C-alpha cells in the first residue's frame, strides 16, 4: 500500500467519525442554546416592597437563579434569595429592630429564600409553587406572578406569624400579622 492510499484511507475513516460527531455536537449545542434561552439574569433595578399600616419598606438585595420560558413551564425554576440585612423601612431604629432577634434575627437567619417546585399557568398569569423560607421556617408557598416585557411582577400577602417573625404581644401587636409584598424583577439574558 502506498503512502497516498494510506492517506486516503485515513481521510475516509475521519469522515466516517466526523459526521456523527458533527451531528451530535450540533444537537448538543442546540439543546444548550434552548436551555440558555430560558435562563434569565436579575437586572439591577428590581424592587421588593412590603407594606402594611406600619411598617412599610423594601429589601434592597435579591440574588438567585431564574429559568423561565412561557412555552416550557415544566423546566421553569425560581431559586432566589433576599438578604434580610438589606431591609430598609426608612427609619434607622426600625431597621435595627427588624434585624434583631425579636423579628428576623438576621444574625442567625440572614436570608429569605424561595425555591419553586413547579410553575403553573393560570389564565394570563402564572403561579410558582414552592417553598418559602423566612426566619428559618420553611412553608409551602404559592407565588402568583406575571411576566411581560422581560419583567416579573408579583403581589402576595405574607403572614409573619406563620414564620415566627415577631409576636402579637406588646409593641409587636402594633404590626399587622399580614404584610403585602410587591415584587418587580426586570430580567436580562
Amino acid at each position, binding site marked *: 500500500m502506498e503512502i497516498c492510499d494510506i492517506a486516503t484511507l485515513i481521510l475516509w475513516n475521519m469522515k466516517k467519525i466526523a459526521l456523527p460527531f458533527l451531528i451530535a455536537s450540533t444537537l448538543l449545542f442546540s439543546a444548550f442554546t434552548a436551555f440558555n434561552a430560558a435562563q434569565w439574569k436579575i437586572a439591577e433595578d428590581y424592587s421588593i*416592597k412590603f407594606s402594611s399600616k406600619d411598617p412599610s*419598606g423594601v429589601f434592597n438585595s435579591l440574588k438567585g437563579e431564574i429559568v423561565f420560558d412561557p412555552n416550557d413551564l415544566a423546566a421553569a425554576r425560581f431559586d432566589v434569595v433576599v438578604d434580610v440585612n438589606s431591609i*430598609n*423601612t*426608612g*427609619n*434607622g*431604629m426600625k*431597621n*435595627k429592630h427588624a434585624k434583631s432577634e425579636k423579628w428576623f434575627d438576621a444574625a442567625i437567619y440572614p436570608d429569605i429564600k424561595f425555591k419553586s417546585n413547579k410553575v403553573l399557568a393560570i389564565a394570563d398569569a402564572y403561579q410558582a409553587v414552592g417553598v418559602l423560607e423566612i426566619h428559618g421556617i420553611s412553608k409551602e408557598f404559592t407565588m402568583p406572578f406575571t411576566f411581560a416585557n422581560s419583567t416579573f411582577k408579583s403581589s402576595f400577602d405574607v403572614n409573619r406569624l406563620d414564620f415566627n417573625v415577631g409576636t402579637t404581644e406588646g409593641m409587636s401587636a402594633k404590626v399587622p400579622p399580614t404584610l403585602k409584598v410587591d415584587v418587580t424583577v426586570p430580567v436580562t439574558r
Partner: protein
Amino acid sequence: MKKIFIHSLLAGVLAGIASLVYNHFYCAALMVDFSKVIGFAAVLGSSVFGTVIAGLGYYVLWRKWGVKVDVWFNAIFILLSLISFMGPLIARLPLEVLSPELFVGATIPMHLFPVIFWLALKPIFGQETKG
C-alpha cells in the same frame, strides 16, 4: 423688639451655618448622603425659622415676666430643643435613602445649635429694655 429680632436672626443664621458644616463633615466621614431630606435650604431655613419663633416667644414672655424672662425662657428653649430630638428619631426617610440609622446622628446635634447660638449671643444683646 428690634434687638430681639436681630439676636434671633443672627443666632439662626449661625446655627444654620454650623449645621451645614457639621452635616458636610458627618456625611463625608460616614459616606452617607441625606441631601434629599436635609438640603441646604431646609437646614438654613429651619434654623432661622426656629430661632425667629423663639425670639417671638422671648418677646411675649418678656412682656409677661420682665427681667425674669431669661431664666424661664432659657429653660423652655432648652427643653423644647431636647423634645425636638423625637423628630429625627421617628422620621421615616424616603426608601431610596440608604443608612437611615445614621440620620439621627446627623440631625440631633443640629437641633441643639439654635439654642447654643442663642445663649452664646445673649451677652452681646443683653436684656430687652423697651417694647
